[in-house]
């Protein structure tokens, strides 16, 4: 199913759509994190960011593999390397350039908190054994991503004047991209009806409470939830940044489709 198609009708189409939405968020976010490799603020944090990147790319790979099995594609690489930017269903937040360390941490915290509540609900709901098994496996790592990024928000916010200013700026800058976390379109609703997704509204307050309490503890100001919010990425309307990211990520595979690791 490509991006501008109609609402998925069968259970399998709905499942593939959800798998790709989850996987695209994780692949693109993981790729952005991988850009820190060798550039982290400290050796240990460099390794931590690379670990989270590998976890997220791993989550994406397992979700893509299942989609590939359902759609009869060769493997997960098809989705990662041979689709164009308008086919990607990730939210814009994860494709934004990595920015400074504060921006990376702010994004990780907002997204991991969202993933934490989303996965918690999905595990209770998803009526597909293989998909649910993956979610349970990923969930353990998501808990750690949340813990790690939350602790950093506290330390940067309640740290030096510079770290406080940088993480506050990061939250202010990224805020307009948080709306998409809770957008529900017809494909999502169709998946909810088929027991493959959940109404994200059901945990929006939990997410807000965690974000508010963390930012307050970090002596930060919570930006306005009612400000203008970016939308449309799930339907393929991306920022300019995704194309550049894909050019770098896909170049080798597209130029040498049969290349192998030796």
């Amino acid at each position: 199913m490509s991006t501008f198609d109609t609402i998925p009708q069968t259970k399998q189409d709905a499942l593939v759509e959800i798998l790709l939405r989850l996987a695209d968020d994780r692949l693109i976010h993981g790729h952005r994190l991988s850009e820190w490799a060798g550039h982290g603020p400290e050796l240990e944090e460099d390794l931590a960011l690379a670990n989270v990147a590998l976890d997220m790319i791993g989550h994406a790979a397992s979700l893509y593999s299942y989609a590939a099995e359902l759609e009869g594609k060769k493997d997960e690489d098809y989705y990662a390397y041979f689709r164009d930017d308008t086919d990607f269903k990730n939210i814009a937040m994860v494709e934004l350039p990595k920015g400074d360390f504060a921006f990376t941490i702010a994004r990780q915290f907002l997204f991991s908190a969202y993933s934490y509540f989303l996965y918690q609900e999905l595990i209770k709901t998803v009526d597909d054994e293989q998909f649910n098994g993956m979610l349970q496996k990923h969930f353990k790592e998501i808990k750690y991503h949340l813990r790690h990024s939350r602790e950093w928000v506290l330390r940067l916010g309640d740290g030096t004047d510079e770290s406080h200013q940088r993480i506050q700026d990061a939250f202010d800058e990224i805020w307009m991209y948080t709306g998409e976390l809770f957008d529900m379109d017809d494909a999502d609703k169709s998946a909810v009806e088929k027991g493959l997704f959940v109404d994200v509204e059901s945990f929006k307050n939990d997410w807000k409470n965690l974000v508010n309490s963390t930012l307050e503890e970090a002596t930060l100001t919570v930006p306005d939830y009612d400000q203008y919010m970016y939308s449309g990425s799930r339907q393929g309307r991306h920022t300019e940044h995704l194309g550049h990211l894909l050019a770098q990520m896909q170049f080798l595979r597209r130029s040498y489709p049969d290349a192998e690791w030796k």
Partner: protein
Amino acid sequence: MLLYSDFWLLFLRLQIIPMSKNSENNTEWPLWEVFYQPKDGKPFEHAGSVHAPDAEMALQNARDTYARRNEGIAFWVVPSEQITASTPEDQGPFFDPANDKPYRHPQFYSVPRAVKKRK
């Protein structure tokens, strides 16, 4: 990619540690010693060390550095400066006296015939 990250860790360790010892304005995070417990009931073993600003981050850095291959089930982290070590000069008085006391090893004693028979 996993393998690559491990090589690169080793590489960075070799590069960074000697440099930081020479720098005058050392803004590096404090060092922590990491111990891990391989299994329930087993004694903790020394894994290595990490830099971290505080105890919680030391635990997290220990997790990211030393819990990559099912090493164990629990960690201790201790500020390295809190460890008191014996000096090389202590080696003689501390350890040499045991050299001529083989009876402190269980193997020194022969097992009675009646016990051997039961095997």
